[in-house]
């Protein structure tokens, strides 16, 4: 209970932020309880389900098994950064169009994993999607429509790149 307090400084969703936090605080708890970014979910607390997935310097990580201080000086991106409140990110649009959302509890983590995948591999094949996303569990969809959403997002983002 008497963990030492440290100053954490990081870039969170594009903005520099600074907080005093206990050294043993997990990144998911920092995001949810200190920054009130409740989009990332704590569903297993053991790095098994991926509902807490956020991007650290563009790489997907389980924030429930990452100490907040590990984010020191890094860039963290959460689901809250993808939409400006008026328009959706193409990945978010694709999830809706493909019917890839049911209860929605896995969705923020799924979308962050998709974002990381499409940054690294803009046109992934089905097997590539399955392997890249295997760290995210979904209990509702049977995954089929999520795969379709990733493919749809990939196509649309490719189209957008060509158009611009």
């Amino acid at each position, binding site marked *: *209970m008497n963990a030492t307090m440290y100053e954490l400084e990081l870039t969170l969703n594009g903005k520099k932020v600074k907080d005093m936090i206990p050294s043993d605080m997990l990144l998911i708890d920092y995001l949810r309880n200190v920054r009130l970014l409740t989009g990332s*979910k704590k*569903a297993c607390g053991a790095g098994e389900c991926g509902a807490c997935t956020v991007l650290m310097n563009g790489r997907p990580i389980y924030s429930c098994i990452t100490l907040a201080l590990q984010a020191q000086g890094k860039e963290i991106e959460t689901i809250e950064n993808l939409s400006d409140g008026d328009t959706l990110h193409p990945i978010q649009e694709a999830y809706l169009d493909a019917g890839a959302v049911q209860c929605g509890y896995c969705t923020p983590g799924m979308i962050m994993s998709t974002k990381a995948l499409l940054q690294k591999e803009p046109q992934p094949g089905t097997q590539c999607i399955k392997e890249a996303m295997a760290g*995210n*569990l979904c*209990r509702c969809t*049977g995954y089929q429509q999520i795969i379709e959403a990733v493919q749809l997002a990939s196509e649309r983002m490719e189209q957008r790149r060509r158009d611009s």
Partner: protein
Amino acid sequence: MNEYKYIGKPVRRIDGQAKVTGRAVYSDDVILPRTLHAKVLHARQSHAKILLLDTEQAKAYPGVAAVYTAKDIARNDKYFRMGDTKDTWVLAEEYVRYIGDMVAIVVAESEEIAEAALRLIKVEYEPLPVVSSLQQAKEAKDLTRCDKPGNVAMPIVVERGDVEKDFAQAAVVAGGTYTFPSLHQVHLEPNSATAVYNMGKLAVYCASQMWFHIREDISAVTGIAEKDIEIKPMMIGGAFGARNDQPLPVITALLAVMLKATVKMTNTRLEEFLACRPALGMEIETWIAADAEGNFLSKKTKLLSGFGAYSSDGDAVTAIACFRGDNNYRFRSTYVNGTGLYLNHAPTGAYRGFGNPQMHFALEQAIDELAVKLNMDPTELRLKNFMHNHETSIHGFRYETNGIRECMAQAKELMGWDEKRKNKTPGKGIGVAALIHCSGSRAGKPEFAGSSALLRLESSGALTVLIGESEIGQGMNTVCTQIVAEELGVDPLSVNVVMGDTSLTPFSTGTNGSKLTSNLGIAILFACKDLKKQMSDCLRERWGIGPVEIKNGAAYGEYTGEKIMSFDEAAVKCSHAFNGRPFYGVGIFEPKTDLGDATGYGNLAPAYPFGVQMAEVTVHDNGTFTVDKIVSVHDIGKTINSQMAMGQVYGGVLQGMAGVTLESLAINKEGIYQANTLLEYKPPTFLEMPEIVGSFVETIDPYGPYGAKCIAEPPIIAVAPAVANALYDAVGIRFEEAPITPAIFRKKLLEKQRENQRQNQPEKLPENQGQQRTNPKEAGS
């Protein structure tokens, strides 16, 4: 056939934007000021007498608001409504009876403090014998609980027709004993609740499939009248039956009342496994008698089901397992002897399918076995015995529409059944299983069978559907908007839906039995018609306009067909004519169904969904197998949302497949769940997906809205037997016990090889086992 604008179309989810942006608020996302946090001390033993329970040190820990044990709780025995047996307590009194039984609760300023204080509670136990298996419970040498002699929680014995006579006349009898383990629903969102007590009133933010029943539970345990309790529905991260009976919100509410404070409690994943309500494990011995042509005569079943230490939904689940599967086929007689048994593990209850998957695992394998004995194609044998339209089944189900034959035809086509049976590929196997379920079974609910809905129109033209059921991911809120949009011609995304705020919505018996689209959907349709009539009457009587018809988002002259005013203008006129009151369309659907008589006979549901599921498996040279493809064809009545309906099929099929090949709680002799993490329990990932081919047969049921029945539960029901039958087709081994894990599969395969070698059948195994195929006629013997 009618042309619809929104019905049957892939309309986007109305809660989708909130869910993809992270803005959707689930129970654990509720953060209120001055909140205390609670943690539960769970039993460390599966069965023990509590000798000492000392909470003094925990109480003295800085930041602790209270530590409670059973003796602090005035209404400790008023727990629970679930089950008829009323044999549960809030906190354990003299004994603990499963790992997860609740012993004490700490409430503190933070979750961390509560956890630290929990470790200071001293408990001494005197261990008692643990009853961990159905056979052990049946022998009753050891008792799960000293107050339940014989370990029997419920018996069912029913005979219809003359079973002995029919068995005596039979040319062929087939069957066996099939066991299905206790599975966990694993909805991804752990239970969480926040309860706010203030001046005799209580508000509880939580998730539930039964908002009104959880309010009843809370009232019973806290002593606060139901009208002073408001249940605030949060977004729900999956349910699958597990949110029929949830201790957590009830206890959170109780703590808020005891401390006159705001209290929040959230389960860890481990607590989800230990202290919730998984499905019933069952052991089912079933035999089917048929004549030489393959006409079914009779069925005889002995069933044991595991209730856990206390009653939850076990009695209703067991009853459905005992009866429902029989109704798909024409039997002259049937006998069932079902016994629910207490076991020293978590109380068990509802999981998608509600006992029906367990029985289908037995029944559909027994039918497969019968086909082998009769040397018949298993699809032909089923087709010969399925029920028809307008027939009444042996347990009293009456079918207005029955598309099972069309389902079979489509499934065969999609699997390439005839071709694959004719030209068998070594190492591959195909299997079939059929299913029946209910669209809105009463499942023992005494109150009423139907649903009611309100549709509120405000002067702004805003439309809000008010219903007492839950959105658990299945998409009912979107279905509501589709129906309103279809009837009034407005944009579905403009329709608001309130589901389950108990201070606003009609009473509902809950979100279960795959009843929402069929029963609630028709109530919403009626509410739309009622609202249109009220608007039309108001315009004519108060404004002298019309008669008008409300459609396409406007008011049209009934005779001229010309548009008179927009929907929003009509809304203003209606509201202002009555000094600003909103208009409420009221819809009530009261199905003509029975609760069932004392023997369980009766027409339980307004409509019945049917389906056929097929699996294709490959057995590999290293002694493992994969499920390559599952075909799932459903008589859905009428599809309301094509995309969401298919989503239900994909999700249900994968759950079904995982339940028979991957998942197990692995309960050991000490009653301990050896698989109590997501890693060990093994819900499937992207990498375990088979190819899933879903398809629908639209029979257009006379009751449901636009002819709809249901789709939520059916896709899980017959996957397990289809996979087991496909494995039999591949290797000639009957897998009577689920889950068929790689280890069990390989063990059985080696046993089979040794047996074959003993019989001097030279087979080059194990190197080559995938290439070997046995004659199915011999293999079953």
